[in-house]
């Protein structure tokens, strides 16, 4: 009663085919399911208080600043644009930075738009939108400079603001590259002056500082290279995925029609 050698081969093939078919059907189902947009709940369900309550630490110009009776800034305008896109009134809740995430967690606000950098450790409780601004370090150099990226720095001079993240980043690169000279200045404007006037081949400063400086010096057309990424994103509660999806969709819409870029240029 020796078993036929083909029997085990055929059995194996049948099992493999069944597994393959099961995986294929599952994948096709998943693709089809994800491709079909699910209807989102109505706005009154997404924002049960009848308004989008935006938590913001309004002490962070040019992103958000509070005056005696109003708030203004890039993020205030962004929140208003998002609310208009969604079709819901907006109300701002001015909070200290320490209390932002607690306020979100305890449902005192619906979203946080407050120069929040994506923090992976909060992923269980917080859903972040796609980034709306990169606040990282940028390398700024005149067009004729030999330095347009960090790898070009050896034997050249890099201007930084004393004590800034740019100086810390420069010291990090000093450990990776052949030597270059770090020139610390008291203010980021002086570091950019050094790059503009040729006292340094480049300056490493925050994107915001560079943008503000270039508004003051429109005749200077330097090369700007992103060196670090510090993404600002909108935070919602992870257990409200529909709200996160609607915010993300509205942000996407502002990006696609150029409104977001126009808004950033208004302030930076």
């Amino acid at each position, binding site marked *: 009663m020796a078993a036929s050698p083909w029997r085990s081969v055929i059995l194996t093939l049948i099992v493999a085919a069944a597994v393959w078919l099961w995986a294929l059907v599952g994948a096709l189902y998943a693709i089809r399911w994800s491709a079909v947009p699910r209807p989102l709940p109505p706005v009154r369900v997404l924002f049960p208080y009848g308004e989008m309550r935006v938590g913001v630490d309004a002490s962070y110009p040019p992103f958000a600043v509070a005056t005696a009776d109003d708030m203004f800034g890039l993020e205030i305008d962004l929140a208003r644009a998002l609310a208009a896109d969604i079709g819901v009134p907006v109300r701002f809740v001015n909070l200290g930075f320490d209390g932002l995430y607690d306020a979100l967690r305890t449902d005192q606000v619906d979203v946080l738009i407050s120069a929040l950098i994506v923090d992976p450790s909060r992923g269980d409780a917080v859903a972040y939108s796609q980034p709306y601004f990169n606040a990282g370090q940028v390398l700024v150099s005149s067009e004729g400079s030999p330095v347009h990226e960090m790898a070009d720095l050896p034997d050249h001079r890099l201007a930084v603001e*004393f004590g800034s993240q740019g100086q810390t980043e420069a010291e990090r690169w000093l450990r990776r590259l052949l030597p270059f000279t770090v020139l610390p200045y*008291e203010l980021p404007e002086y570091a950019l002056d050094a790059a503009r006037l040729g006292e340094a081949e480049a300056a490493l400063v925050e994107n915001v500082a560079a943008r503000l400086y270039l508004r003051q010096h429109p005749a200077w057309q330097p090369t700007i290279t992103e060196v670090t990424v*510090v993404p600002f994103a909108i935070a919602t509660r992870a257990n409200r995925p529909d709200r996160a999806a609607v915010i993300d969709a509205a942000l996407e819409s502002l990006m696609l029609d150029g409104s977001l870029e126009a808004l950033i240029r208004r302030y930076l």
Partner: protein
Amino acid sequence: MRSIARRGADGFRRRWRWCVRGVVLWLLLGTLLPAAPRAPLGEPQTVETDHPLVCLHTRLIEEVDEWKIQRSLQLAREMGADTIVEFFPWAYVENDEDQYNWSNVDRIVAHARNQGIHIIARMGLVPAWARPDTDDEFSTLNTLPEESYPDFAEFVADFAGRYAGVIDHLIIWNEPNLAFEWGYRQVDPEGYVRLLQAVYDAAHAANPNVVILAAPLAPTLEPPGSAAGLNDLLYLEAIYEAGGAAYFDGLAMHTYGFTEPAAAPASETALNFRRAEMLRQVMERYGDAETPVFITETGWNDNPRWTKAVTPSQRIAYTLDAFEIAELEWDWMEKLCLWVFRYPAPTFNYPDNFTLVTTDFQLKPIYYAVQTYARGFTTDESLWLPPPGDQ
């Protein structure tokens, strides 16, 4: 029967051989892995400092890696700080009622002692079992209902007894004049005095030498009735009015410079470094001049955009001025602790600009400046270049 038994024995031997081979392979592969970082205690160290006022607020309790605790404390010692303030959350130690896990506290204490550094312990953060039932009542990690005061007092007493002679300074709670720190409830100075009262005798019974420090108040001008908090001067007055002086041996203070220099004059409406003098006046007014003060948080922030920040160069100058003022003018003050030495993980916002050392242990210029002051080093070198075109 014998052949079946022999086949069984052969099968067992075969499997056994494979097990042995597996173990050998596992051991060989293990040799390829890098060794886990270790933090063995070395020779006991002592702190060398010319200015024993210099103190640091650390954030070590959330560290996973022991070597980072050790490295932080080594750097604190090398900077010339002989004391740290560290937060020891109740919720971390007694996560389940009457089930204590002291391991994280123990390793911090062991490394601090090894570096010759004293600890001032800040107590707070309520475990879930001691908070109100969240289905019935809103609560946060800072919500301590009055019926849980005895539980908190028991924890503080256990802590005081366990670390008697090693940690003798305990801060009871943090900034109770802020709604955020009081579980988003209306702030309640009388309620806070009852908390001090619950803790005081229990802690002293466990460690007769313990120094109970009343909580530092957040510098704020919030008026009475505000949902956010209460003016620190008014809150301190209310503590004295409620008879709180009987339940603390020292007062902790928080005083930040924000955008003003250290020398900027104090006033009731100004939030600056010298606000500590206003708080001290309240103490004196209530006949409590003999009680020592520990400034457990101070400093400036050098974030480029935060409205309450200064430039990195101003931050250094103001910080050094603050130490000079405290040393020359404030004989009632025991320690001046900088917020904050280092965060275990970045906050990704302006609080990162309060640190002296980055999360990945890069020393900032302010670290060197405070070290130069504390250790009595001298240098003629300018920290930064003149503006371009000015030479």
